[in-house]
């Protein structure tokens, strides 16, 4: 009985801490300005990135070379995006506010992917420009 209570309480606490940690980690990119270059490449029309853009942004990210550390970060965010997608689907009918909250989280994930893509493209262009200046 005690083990079951500890299990339930710990699992709920785990979910709460995990979601808050992900939010805290994504905050740094939430208000970052995206360049016109990444908007054009990823086909982002509006002022903000849509939650559904995440998959497309991820495909662009895999195509663009970058640091290994970011790959792990992006994989962790992709996992969180899928988790929010499940919550969104489950709560759409019964708890619309929870579904909206999950959608906001998915939008943060898309924004994160767009910011990482933007940085990678900028880095690649910088490398190409440097190579063009100093050809071997």
């Amino acid at each position, binding site marked *: 009985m005690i083990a079951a209570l500890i299990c339930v309480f710990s699992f709920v606490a*785990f979910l709460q801490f995990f979601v808050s940690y992900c939010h805290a980690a994504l*905050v740094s990119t939430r208000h970052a300005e995206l360049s016109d270059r990444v908007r054009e490449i990823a086909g982002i029309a509006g002022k903000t990135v849509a939650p559904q853009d995440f998959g497309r942004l991820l495909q662009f990210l895999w195509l663009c070379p970058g640091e290994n550390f970011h790959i792990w970060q992006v994989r962790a965010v992709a996992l969180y995006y899928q988790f929010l997608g499940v919550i969104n689907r489950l709560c759409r009918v019964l708890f619309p506010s929870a579904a909206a909250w999950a959608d906001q989280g998915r939008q943060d994930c898309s924004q994160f992917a767009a910011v990482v893509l933007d940085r990678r493209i900028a880095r690649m262009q910088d490398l190409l420009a440097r190579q063009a200046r100093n050809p071997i």
Partner: protein
Amino acid sequence: MLGPLDYFLWITSFLLEAWVVFQVISSRSFARYYPVALYMFSAALVECVHYVCITRFGVSSPQYHFVYFCTGTLLTILLFWVIIQFYQQAFSGLNIRRYIRGGAAILILATALFSCVAVRAHNGRLTQQFAVEFGQDLYFVGVVLTYLLWAVILYFRETRARLVHLVLALGVYFSGTAASYALRNLFPSLHTSFQWALPILGTLLPLAWACTFWKVPEDSRILAYQLAGRTP
């Protein structure tokens, strides 16, 4: 017999723990976060002790089980000290440092005493079931302490991003470990299914803390609505 994944997690944990110590010192945060550095240093030291024990006695020997159990308990008690330090930081605006220190001393002494009594009572017969139940209770105390700390952070609208990240990572670690122990206690037959949970969680804590010290500057701020995932 340990497999490649065991060794991978082991080496990764050791390197990450050493990295956290390096990050704390190199970011000139030692005065503020010395319990974190000491905990991570001790954890790295314990990894080395485990390695010596395994090579000398073997992974299934009672000597290794005893060392694993005792060092794990000591590290958890040390982690309580880290939480107390976070409490002091969260309450730094109020003049209640003395009370926190007093409460912390009682809590750590009581936990250490309870652990000593429990280990003495089961000396020579440290069964798997006892270890699981003891770990479950000990980590659950950690969950409650971290949860209360998180409530304090939200109540006082704490904005220090580094502290928030450290506490949340600790919360994930404690709650995940307690849930894993409780599941093992509830379903002993599923023991093998949960064998990776503890090493993975043990690797994620130093990883999250190292990233925090590396990526989140001390003067970085975070707002309550951002933590809740809402727009202002």
